[in-house]
């Protein structure tokens, strides 16, 4: 069954809201922004065709409240809800509530969201689909943990089942630390995630974070290339690129095939990202998790594929079959993305909310800035610190990085402190320029740099 989307409620904020509105305009879909009280004057609110109040500034009562989102969608008679990323984007209760209300949820089926929503379930699906996983397993008590540890060896990681984004993860160097760390991890997991379950995993000392973008229609899926997101600080990505540099062709092909196998196993409908850990020493890869939504870093894939991923996402949400075959996916050149955050790197990346006085952006061929701010915008303290994404497409990686450096020099976001100086220093670093850094690189880079505030 297909449902034509004519009016779309965007249940999100920030740059992704502005991004979805842009595709709506191009496709002739009416956009309605569901905004919290902190966002009713924001740039996305000015760009959307209509704005509906979602709730108070506190996200728990607005962007994180499925009932409020459905109420807003019903109030404006929207055909569909686009959840963006973060907030309720992977929340099965919103997907189900939309279905009950007869509204299209722009995302995978609730069953898919549940299948990949927790790490252990996702891992079991990955195993069933034939993907390699990091050796490890669940441990209910110390004896169980010792058993798993004997199999995977030390060092190992204890991870909270309910964790994610680096939260609830602890390193165990050797057998003497196991009992203590396990106790700590279980009690912290119970307190932080309401779920005391933990599992143990081999620690990969030099790993790259590489992910494969997929798109499925429930029957068939295509892989839209890979991205490297290894430049991270405290598990938060700062810089992404497509394709992942310096990967052997055979490994890249195996990763794409693995991602497709998982998508097909799940009968996946929607945009999704299969996150993989590439072990630099062993030259192998393991399944990490699957993100069942559009991601912050989707523009680098758009730049190298020439596709509008939001439009593709809306089409499969309407129930249309994929318009793409795998052979239609042709990658051109190299794209990089710098995430510009309202943070002060000189003060330990301290957040910098406030009023922006002026925004001047580089423009031209192969340049794109996705942002939700302009001169006069207020950056509220309630949400994340992402201000803008500078995305640059070049003929190859060196070209893209060189052009990104030039573009950064032209970019001005005045009034709050931003991470632009960090990106300038990063793009000038020789190890980074060589490509293929691992996930420990960025902290080492910061230690070696004196990154001044702008």
């Amino acid at each position, binding site marked *: 069954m297909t449902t034509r989307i004519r009016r779309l409620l965007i249940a999100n904020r920030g740059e992704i809201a502005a991004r979805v509105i842009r595709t709506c305009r191009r496709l002739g879909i009416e956009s309605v922004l569901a905004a919290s009280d902190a966002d009713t*004057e924001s740039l996305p609110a000015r*760009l959307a065709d209509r*704005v509906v109040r979602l709730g108070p500034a506190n996200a728990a009562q607005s962007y994180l409240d499925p009932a409020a989102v459905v109420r807003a969608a*019903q109030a404006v008679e929207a055909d569909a809800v686009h959840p963006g990323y973060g907030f309720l984007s992977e929340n099965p209760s919103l997907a189900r509530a939309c279905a009950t209300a007869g509204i299209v949820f722009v995302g995978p089926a609730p069953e898919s969201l549940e299948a990949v929503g927790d790490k252990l379930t996702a891992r079991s699906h990955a195993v069933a689909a034939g993907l390699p996983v990091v050796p490890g397993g669940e441990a209910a008590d110390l004896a169980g943990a010792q058993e798993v540890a004997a199999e995977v060896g030390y060092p190992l990681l204890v991870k909270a089942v309910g964790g994610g984004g680096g939260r609830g993860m602890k390193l165990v160097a050797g057998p003497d630390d196991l009992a203590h760390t396990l106790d700590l991890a279980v009690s912290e997991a119970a307190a932080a995630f309401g779920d005391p379950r933990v599992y143990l995993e081999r620690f990969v000392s030099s790993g790259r974070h590489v992910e494969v973008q997929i798109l499925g229609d429930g029957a068939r899926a295509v892989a839209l290339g890979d991205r490297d997101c290894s430049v991270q600080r405290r598990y938060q990505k700062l810089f992404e690129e497509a394709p992942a540099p310096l990967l052997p062709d055979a490994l890249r092909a195996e990763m794409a095939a693995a991602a497709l196998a998982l998508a097909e196993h799940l009968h996946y409908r929607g945009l999704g990202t299969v996150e993989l850990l590439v072990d630099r020493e062993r030259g192998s890869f393991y399944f990490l998790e699957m993100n069942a939504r559009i991601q912050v870093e989707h523009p680098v894939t758009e730049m190298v594929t020439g596709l509008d991923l939001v439009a593709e996402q809306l089409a499969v949400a309407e129930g249309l079959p994929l318009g793409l075959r795998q052979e239609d996916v042709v990658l051109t050149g190299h794209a990089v993305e710098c995430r510009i955050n309202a943070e002060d790197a000189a003060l330990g990346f301290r957040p910098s909310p406030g009023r922006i006085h002026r925004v*001047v952006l580089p*423009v031209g061929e192969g340049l794109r800035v996705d942002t939700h701010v302009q001169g006069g915008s207020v950056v509220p303290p309630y*949400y994340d610190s992402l201000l803008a994404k500078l995305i640059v497409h070049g003929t190859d990686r060196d070209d893209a990085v060189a052009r990104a450096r030039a*573009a950064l020099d*032209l970019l001005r976001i005045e009034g709050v402190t931003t991470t632009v100086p960090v990106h300038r220093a990063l793009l000038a670093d020789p190890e980074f320029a060589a490509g293929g850094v691992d996930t420990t690189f960025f902290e080492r880079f910061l230690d070696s740099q004196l990154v001044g505030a702008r």
Partner: protein
Amino acid sequence: MELTPDDVRDVLRALDSSGLQELHLELADLTLTVRREGAAGWTAEQQVTRAPQVEQAAAPAAAAEAPAPAAEVGEGLVAVHPPLLGTFYRAPQPGAPPFVDIGDEVGTETVVGIVETMKMMTPVHAGVRGTVVEFRLGNGEFADADAVLLVVEPA
């Protein structure tokens, strides 16, 4: 009307073949200044000026929060302010005991709460040695940068 990045690129193509250094456009709901930055390329400064009209969903609007009372503390007492604005939490996690309570003794480095700003948690230190005599802000309440979180009687 909104200009898309493609529209701006079309403007640039026209400008590239001209000798113009700068172009300023004013439309009903938008201003745009495109500027040539020497050999480095072009920049754009855009202002969408349309004021949004906000519709109400079915739920009633929450009552507006009353402004916080003036941040005065008594003579000889010390106010503890947040390190930056954000949501003030008195305990490390929901259900946990508070970092400190009324009557507790604190030192300059004692953590008396945390402030969440843009998803980042920053500890609040007492900054003074003494006894906690009053809390001005409850758990989960929003603190402006000049808010008084709690009051300490110096030792």
